[in-house]
């Protein structure tokens, strides 16, 4: 029973890994971003917790822990035939994943500080917009504590006025909704703590871009103009010589903004609400959280019995 309940978070991770990207494409982007981030965090916490509990249950019959915890080794071991040494496996896994998550969080902090320093050096930007004199068309949002939109003169000149408006509205959406801090980073953190969630984290990143695209299209009042802005900005970048702002990273960044998918999505009709899919994701989260809580209860119960048996034997 314990084992079965404890498997639920892992099953949920697999479901998210398999279905996450498709779910991200089908849901309205804002909903997809929020739900997938929440589902990722829930699942990562639940898997980490369950792994830790497993490690503890398996290691508990070790004489040293029995002496410290005053519980009956036989009762703690229960029906599980696994030797105590196997507990080292989940213990190592949980420590490794915890270290990865902490490393990731430290990395975020460092990047945030770097972004903040950059914002200060680039500023003051009274309109929240910095135009840099660069031949390479480029536009991005720096997510420091105070966000900043950076656009190169080449990018501004490559786009006609209505598409420039789309670009600014897109970046403004990133800043206004805190896409970086509130979603993509948390989803990446969940993926660090549970590698099965890497796919869903990528889906969150794409969904956040799509969210900003949809906001920009709404602002422009025209989806085609928004699609055109993406296409023209992409082509302008492709036409410009490599080098400049980020020459070295050209290949690395290539797949990251999913230009083709985003453009196609804008050319299609606005995304529909999908209550059934939302319900399914919510149910998955509840089930996962419930399984973690259930595992906690069952384990506590087992240890209570083991302690009782221990003091009884005295």
């Amino acid at each position, binding site marked *: 029973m314990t084992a079965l309940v404890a498997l639920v978070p892992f099953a949920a991770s697999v479901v998210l890994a398999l279905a996450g990207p498709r779910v991200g494409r089908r849901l309205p982007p804002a909903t997809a971003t929020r739900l997938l981030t929440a589902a990722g965090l829930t699942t990562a916490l639940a898997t980490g917790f369950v792994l830790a509990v497993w490690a503890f249950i398996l290691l508990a019959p070790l004489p040293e822990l029995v002496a410290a915890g005053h519980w009956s080794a036989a009762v703690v071991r229960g029906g599980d035939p696994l030797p105590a040494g196997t507990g080292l496996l989940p213990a190592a896994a949980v420590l490794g994943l915890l270290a990865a998550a902490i490393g990731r969080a430290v990395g975020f902090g460092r990047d945030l500080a770097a972004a903040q320093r950059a914002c200060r050096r680039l500023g003051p930007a009274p309109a929240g917009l910095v135009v840099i004199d660069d031949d390479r068309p480029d536009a991005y949002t720096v997510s420091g504590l105070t966000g900043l939109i950076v656009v190169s*003169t080449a990018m501004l000149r490559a786009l*006609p006025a209505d598409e420039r408006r789309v670009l600014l509205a897109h970046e403004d959406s990133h800043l206004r909704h805190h896409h970086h801090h509130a979603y993509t980073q948390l989803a990446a953190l969940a993926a660090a703590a549970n590698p099965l969630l890497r796919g869903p984290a990528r889906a969150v990143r794409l969904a956040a871009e799509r969210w900003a695209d949809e906001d920009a299209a709404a602002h422009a009042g025209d989806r085609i103009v928004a*699609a055109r802005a993406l296409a023209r900005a992409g082509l302008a970048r492709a036409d410009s010589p490599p080098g400049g702002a980020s020459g070295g990273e050209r290949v690395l960044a*290539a797949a990251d903004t999913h230009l083709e998918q985003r453009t196609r999505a804008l050319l299609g009709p606005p995304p529909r609400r999908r209550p059934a899919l939302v319900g399914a994701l919510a149910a998955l989260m509840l089930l996962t959280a419930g399984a973690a809580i259930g595992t906690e209860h069952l384990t506590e119960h087992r240890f209570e019995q083991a302690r009782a048996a221990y003091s009884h034997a005295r």
Partner: protein
Amino acid sequence: MLERELFAAIAAAGRPLTPAEAREALGRPLAYTTVMSTLARLHDKGALTRSPAGRSFAYGLAVGPDTLDATLTARRMARALDGGANRAEALARFVADLGPDDERLLADLLRAHPSGGAGRGPAEADGAETDRAQTSGAQVGGAQVGGAQVGGAESTGAEDQPR
């Protein structure tokens, strides 16, 4: 948003613009007074400088002597924060670089959906200002704002060149 749009329009023009010119460069029907007051606000905030031009002012970017520094900073930052496999992507790009297939696809798309499509109405929130735009149009000297100005994907280069 309008502040950034105006700021970007002036930066794209590469020279100071009068309110009338700036309004034209926005490519949508906005009231002259709205543009003028937004420019004035940007000037108050120190984002723009202004110099007398005829009966009005011309607004230019208040770029300090540290422009080059800003560009270098931006480049260094982009390199430092750019999305490698394990980076936090503190930098959200509008578009990244393309593969060869993307390039063809996007070029086809631009051909299939040329700018200035018929029936493209003014964006939300502009409606209320359209009337005022027409009444104040006299000051601008015949407002030729809107679809016509934005139109022509291929003519955009010309639009942005200094006049």
